[in-house]
């Protein structure tokens, strides 16, 4: 990962901008009922190996900042909502997903899982400047 960041550094002009954006596995995805702004009725975590990969990516970014080849200029997070007809469609989606846990941690009973469902997940980004 540090190799990739060094390549990005190499092809950038002086003070060029590097953007790193990734799903934020530190924050569980939220399952909302009825609308993208509806009540949160469940959460979805991240698979452990993916979380480990994300931590390695974080360390790689920290490393290039520590080495002073980049400096962090700004960071933030956006939330992205994905709609599903119902829990069956959501379960199908999760079955083969490479990042999400295979199952939803529901906070309401099955009878109260109003549909449609919206999975709202966090995407974090960091803007760095080449030094």
């Amino acid at each position: 990962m540090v190799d990739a960041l060094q390549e990005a550094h190499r092809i950038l002009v002086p003070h060029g901008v590097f953007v790193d954006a990734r799903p934020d596995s530190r924050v569980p995805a939220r399952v909302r009922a009825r609308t993208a702004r509806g009540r949160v009725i469940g959460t979805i975590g991240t698979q452990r190996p993916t979380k480990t990969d994300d931590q390695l990516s974080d360390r790689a970014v920290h490393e290039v900042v520590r080495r002073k080849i980049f400096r962090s200029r700004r960071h933030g997070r956006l939330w992205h909502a994905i709609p599903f007809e119902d829990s069956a469609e959501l379960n199908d989606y999760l079955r083969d997903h490479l990042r999400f846990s295979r199952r939803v941690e529901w906070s309401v009973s099955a009878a109260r899982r109003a549909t449609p469902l919206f999975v709202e997940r966090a995407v974090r980004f960091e803007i760095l400047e080449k030094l």
Partner: protein
Amino acid sequence: MRCFPAQVSGTASAGRILPGGLGFLRPPAEIELAAYGLDLRGLRVADIGAGEGRLALGAARDAASVLAIDPDRGALARGRAEARRQGLPNVKFSEGAAQSLRLPDASFDVVIFSWTL
């Protein structure tokens, strides 16, 4: 760099939560690029790990040129077709991997790794 001093400060928007797009498995380019808060007008952009060019095509609407790099030839072909469909001649698709880019030194103003690291 024009896009930096004008649009970005060290503390601006840190941790701010922005609305995501709806109806896509990944955020639409315009939402994600707007969140970055960069002014890409007139700049040379490299999108590394571009896949089918979701972000590259979005960036090409403002940037002077965009190079989308990905190891997946099928995805690149779909990206090229979409660029033609959208009439974006300033975006190119090229096969490559993030850790060994066959590109000249200091040839881009902005490099994007989205879902890449």
